[in-house]
């Protein structure tokens, strides 16, 4: 639990500009698809969680660092994946 809090603080160091529409969505009906599960452990921002029903959820894209890991790990059959609109999302100052 505390790890998640630490991660939140860490992500709080980054500059984010609000993303209008979520740029990544789990495709409807795919929540239980096993291909989504790797995202829970691999997402560097821990944005994916698995609930007790075995469904993977992506509650928010706030804190998404746009790394692309979920797109590669899970694939576009279970994820609708795009970059956020220009001038929004994470803005690295060091990179």
């Amino acid at each position, binding site marked *: 639990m505390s*790890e998640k809090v*630490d*991660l939140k603080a*860490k*992500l709080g*160091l*980054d500059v984010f*500009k609000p993303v209008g529409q979520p740029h990544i969505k789990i495709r409807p009906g795919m929540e239980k698809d096993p291909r989504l599960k*790797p995202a*829970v*452990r*691999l*997402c*560097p*921002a*821990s944005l994916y969680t698995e609930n007790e029903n075995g469904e993977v959820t992506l509650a928010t894209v706030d804190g998404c*660092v*746009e*790394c*692309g*890991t979920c*797109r*590669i*790990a899970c*694939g*576009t059959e279970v994820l609708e994946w*795009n*970059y*956020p*609109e*220009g*001038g929004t*999302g*994470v*803005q*690295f*100052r*060091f*990179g």
Partner: protein
Amino acid sequence: MNRSCKSGTLKNPKWILNKSSYNRLSGTRKMDKFDVIIVGAGLAGLGAAYTLAGSGLEVLVLERGDYPGAKNVSGGRFYLNPIRDLYPGLFENAPLERFITHEGISLMAKERSVHFDYSGNELREEPHQSYSILRSKFDRWFSERVEEKGAAVLAKIKVDDVIKEDGKIAGVLAGGDELKADVVITCDGVLSLISEKAGLRVPGSAHDFAVGVKEVISMDSGVINDRFNLDGDEGAARLFVGEITRGKFGGGFLYTNRESLSLGLVLGIQDAAGDKAAIEVPALLEEFKERPEIVPLIKGGSTVEYSAHVIPEGGFKALGSLYGNGILVAGDAAGLALNIGFTVRGMEYALASGCYAARTVLEAKKKGGVNAENLGMYKRFLEESFVLKDFGNFRETPAVVSNPRFFNHYPELVGNLMKDIYAIPAGPKERIYPTLRKYLTLGELWTELKDLRGVTKI
């Protein structure tokens, strides 16, 4: 101004709101058609624009970040020797961090570690072969040089799709605007959604990619110099393999910048995804930071940024299509990154491929047009350069360096050997040879020989 623009305005008002570079495009003029549109202001895109700028061609770079570099992440070091001649003079005043004079690799076993360090006067000789780099800083500076030379760079613009006309890529769609161009050079990074839209590739598969996570840790430059035995602008680079990735494909890195450290982990996505017992990536990075080898190095520093990015790891066999009718692909977008164990390189391939893409366009224009046949020169340019020669020479490397024994078995083996060689028990000490034989059994030596056979391919 020798611009082939006609009067009018760009449809989308946001084009007119941003940076000063917009002024040249906005106001009373509307571009009918560009000679070249470049997607993405990373090293490949900016490199292509820099090479084209000043040639008389209308060149437009579109970048989705707030500024060039805002979306760009690297572990943090690159090698100048292969690209110096492609960009004469460019790097002399570039905001690079430190030139690397200390190379280190650490085998990280569960309870211990063994380090190899290499430093030598040759690494101090000018011109320096490798520098640490922070991309947001560098790319922003590079983009200013590109603009000085006469190409336009527009930030905050995401390219959504390509325009296809008669089977040819004829421009891009961005924020509702149709922007036509004779040729599109797409440098939109490792996922290259634009290559997918152009029909040049399909989404990548997990075994060809890794994820890198990194913290930039701010630290006084004097403290860095003391801690890493550095003088002035000298820098250190360290790689770590073993338990820190739970014995899976990947490793850790630490690079010294002028006033910060870049500390991070790289993990093969397929390996990590298939390991149900594995812990979460963010926690793995925390564990790495808590290793007794790392704690004293980062002590007193404060993390100022956390970033992550996918990295192409598939090498030659995973290279995407390099060109199509009306389009060229450069940098990570084409899969141009190469991990050969001791060095992990991508940035100089990006700079080189961007330059060769630009040269292809210039040559094609001279030869009468940017048709598919003339764009095929791009592949030949890359084949004749260090880029595809490296990829050819290291064709077998991804399979060799992903040998799991390098990440779980050898770090433990070497650590255990060291432990027994250095241990002085209360009683008599065992002879060295039987100690070695305890670990280096015939079976072990046989397997090592097989691993070594793999290594001979690289």
